[in-house]
């Protein structure tokens, strides 16, 4: 299983052997501006390190966001093109779910109750979702200014780059937990869900915002008044 995610500043790739429950190789870079350049060389390196060919991969797992659009599309276009070339099925997972799962693996106990995952949505907003525990999301992911989330959300243990960025607004930031997305967690989560017979998401981007575009007013009159 090859997992990748480009919906956050991280470009993360992991090759996971679900049968043997082990990560064969992985690569993580944090560089919000170079997703397009970094992703394929990372995949090539991961496959090379594991001594496997892309054609041997049985399942592709891709983070579908939410995330800033340009980077997000790199991962989805890549996974979709792999599918087009090789017929390998592509499974989508919410990027925030991967972070929640990673937080669970890093020690955020189920006994701690609900928590919130937030990533940077730019324009002073965060993509966020609430979780009952590391594998149970409460409701759909959303985008908002951190300060608008309401005291009951902001007081929850908070995980992810968006929480760290707005520390202070989020009052219980767990900076010791993974801040960046990891394809390793994404792969393990996907394997777990597929193992339970669950359907994952189609590989379609979660933008959560409409494209910025205004219908222009009529043309500007050029004749001086």
């Amino acid at each position, binding site marked *: 299983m090859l997992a990748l995610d480009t919906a956050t500043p991280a470009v993360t790739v992991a090759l996971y052997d679900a049968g043997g429950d082990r990560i064969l190789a992985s690569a993580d870079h944090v560089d919000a501006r170079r997703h397009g350049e970094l992703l*394929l060389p990372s995949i090539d390196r991961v496959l090379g390190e594991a001594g496997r060919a892309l054609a041997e991969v049985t399942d592709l797992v891709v983070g579908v966001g939410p995330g800033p659009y*340009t980077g997000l*599309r790199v991962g989805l*276009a890549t996974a979709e*093109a*792999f599918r087009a*070339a090789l017929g390998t099925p592509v499974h989508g997972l919410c990027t925030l779910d991967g972070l929640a799962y990673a937080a669970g693996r890093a020690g955020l106990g189920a006994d701690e109750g609900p928590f919130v995952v937030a990533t940077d949505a730019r324009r002073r907003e965060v993509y966020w979702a609430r979780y009952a525990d590391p594998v149970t999301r409460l409701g759909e992911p959303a985008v908002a200014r951190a300060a608008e989330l309401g005291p009951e959300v902001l007081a929850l243990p908070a995980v992810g780059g968006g929480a760290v960025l707005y520390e202070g607004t989020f009052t219980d930031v767990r900076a010791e937990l993974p801040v960046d997305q990891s394809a390793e967690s994404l792969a393990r989560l996907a394997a777990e869900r597929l193992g339970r017979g669950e359907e994952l998401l189609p590989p379609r981007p979660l933008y959560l915002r409409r494209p910025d*575009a205004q219908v222009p007013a009529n043309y500007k009159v050029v*004749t001086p008044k």
Partner: protein
Amino acid sequence: MADEPLVLGIETSCDETGVGIVRGTTLLADAVASSVDTHARFGGVVPEIASRAHLEAMVPTIDRALAQAGVAATDLDAVAVTSGPGLAGALLVGVSAAKAYAYALGKPLYGVNHLASHICVDQLEHGPLPEPTMALLVSGGHSSLLLAPDITADVRPLGSTIDDAAGEAFDKVARVLNLGFPGGPVIDKWAREGDPGAIAFPRGLTGPRDAAYDFSFSGLKTAVARWIEARRNAGEEVPVADVSASFQEAVTDVLTRKAIRACTDEGADHLMIGGGVAANSRLRAMAEERCAAAGITLRVPRPKLCTDNGAMVAALGAEMVARGRGTSSWDLSADSSLPVTEPHVPAHGHLHDGHHHDGHHDHVHELSRKNLYAP
């Protein structure tokens, strides 16, 4: 011929998702998905809408092209993709998909220049390009005169627009006339009913001291708008057909005059015209007349190959393969301002590091953004 390279080309620099397949200089498939209707109500291409549409259309368009060509992906000799110039986010979808597709198939990858592709596409219509080829590229994003001694390695900018692209002028005049977006086809249609000599609109940069090969359409656009407003303010009807014909005449007059002058000055006996505006019927007719009078052979591809498409990218990719040019590496990036002097982007050893280009390259290769709404 079966030993000519079979190449798939991907183009996503603006609002058309294009995938073409060629064998050498033979066109096998030209599949295009356009998001132009979505942009129409915004009066211009909205980059984020274009990028979203590219992602959705990418794989279906690849599949459609393969079916059209009747070839299997495994038979391809290479995958080519527009790596620039163009809209950054839009280019990135095509580049990401092309890299992954080539990688998965184990095929070489060629990142190529959009403008050089516009020239090379004519090989699919009229056979191998003469060397050198003089090319006039005119569209909503570019207006340039280019001399190409070798389309895979040596393309020289002679001149370009100093303000609006020719296609942009069509869009803006169409907007003033309330004719909708895009403006090119609709003005062409109206102009057929009008008198091209009815109104004497200015010919920009045609004075004896003006740059011989540069263009300017901003003044013309303003002159047309003023003329129309004067009529409206006087409560008179605006003669849409005459305005369209006279405006179109001014644009095509300047374009062909300068192109022929460049041919004569450089000793080029062939003129190639490409880009979306090359679909304009008056431009084609006038170029034919003036080229014939000057003893220059005119090469204009059919309209569908003039607008942005994947076949042009495949055509240049096939030429790269045929001439043994270097392939691109897996870290190929989308370069929204790729200079026209770089017909392709070979793996490393290339001059630029991350933020490359020495900064003096000018508007020649840059997609004009004046009619684009910010991302």
